[in-house]
């Protein structure tokens, strides 16, 4: 299972990239495997202000739709609109080309309270 060390994670299987003012968010390798073939993605509007835990995007496989939650409070500053044409990259490259949106955290310290790679790995085992 691929769980990069530099990312933070939610129990609901989202990842967020710490360290900048535009933190990219996506879903983990484990999540894409559980979802199976992603066929549709609904992304939030740029400029939207969200609270931690808000459902902000939807990812759909042939069989099911799942919400994607905002890992921290902040403003949506970018979305990966390429996903709408090719949602399958979420399966092939969940930590790279498969990112969903970028968020500008209201409080960057909030990321520290999320799961580390090691803690997330422990949750999965």
């Amino acid at each position, binding site marked *: 299972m691929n769980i990069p060390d530099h990312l933070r994670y939610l129990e609901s299987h989202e990842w967020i990239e710490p360290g900048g003012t535009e933190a990219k968010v996506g879903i983990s390798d484990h999540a894409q495997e559980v979802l*199976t073939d992603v*066929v*549709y993605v609904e992304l939030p509007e740029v400029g939207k202000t969200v609270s931690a835990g808000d459902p902000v995007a939807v990812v759909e496989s*042939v069989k099911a739709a799942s919400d994607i939650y905002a890992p921290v409070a902040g403003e949506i500053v970018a979305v990966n609109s390429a996903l709408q044409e090719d949602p399958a990259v979420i399966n092939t490259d969940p930590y790279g080309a498969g990112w969903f949106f970028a968020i500008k955290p209201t409080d960057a310290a909030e990321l520290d309270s999320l799961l580390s790679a090691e803690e997330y790995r422990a949750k999965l085992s």
Partner: protein
Amino acid sequence: MSENTEDLKRSPLHDRHVALGARLVPFAGWEMPVQYEGILREHRAVRESCGVFDISHMGEITVRSTEGTKAAAAYLNHLLTNDASVLKPGQGQYTLMLNERGGVIDDLILYRTRTDGFFLVVNASKLSEDLIWLEQEADSYYTVRIEDHSAGYGALAVQGPKSQAIYEKVAKRLPGSPALPPRNGIIKVVAEGDEDNPTPIRICRTGYTGEDGFEFFCPAAQTPAWFDAFLEAGAVPCGLGARDTLRLEKCYPLNGSDLDGYHTPLEAGLKPFVKMGKDEFLGHDALKVQLTKGLPSKLSAICVTGKAPPPRTGYAVVDPETKEPIGELSSGSLSPSLGTGIGLAYLPLEKSAPGTEVCLDIRGRLFPAVVSKKPFI
């Protein structure tokens, strides 16, 4: 319906599914594979090559009469909508069992075997209900013998344009290497000395995918070996997920979703399988009323016209002008073959003509769609 995993029945192929990394889900009281490598891949395998499905959950019933086939056919004709009396030995037909309101209890395939009466293949979820109706109606046909062989049988559906070639490789292992029966046909394969086996191998040229293919019924204990043989011959293991997208593209109804106790087979578009001219059958009078007064609704094929989330069961179908709901999807999915959303819904007759514009309400947003001709592909 909540189903605890420990209460679920397991297919004779359970260990194979686990070894192949299948995702197992509860389905009609069974723990069955929804997919192995992925629904899209499995769907494509069946449309372009060949897939093999575990259908061991399905029910197998034999019906015969001590007075011969004619008496058994008369009894079945009283219970089922199609005409059992036209079947020649070795032929099968799609047929339905109705309640008094004309609603559907089950849809099934009825085969007339060459030697011993009739063989019925029914939905797993309806097996016990089917048996109750069959036995109840047999009271007035006292020569009829009904036997449920579901526990003794395992079953595989081998489907796709290459299914015949794959069959021919595997058939070498069958006693007498028999040829496949013609479309809708059935053969029985019996090894010498095994004539009294209550669950002989039966091979039927039928399926639920719209592709050429066959269904292979064999003693439960033999199922893993035959499954291995079909895989070895090149069939791709496929789960219920692909089975659902394949059948939906062909507009084959799924009982419990597109068929229920409230809509008649006439509303479901299954009139060719309802023979009003034969002697009366259960539900006949309700259908007659519909034929006189007109159908209240029609199971319609709906195709999303733009970019939209995949349609799903339960989504409302909305009139684009009044914004009022006119029905709801009884089935819905992305069509892997077309790359667009498709679904089925009972719509009022005046909204059911192909070309009628409708909308789907998906999470509060309306997406344009159109009533299409059946099947989608």
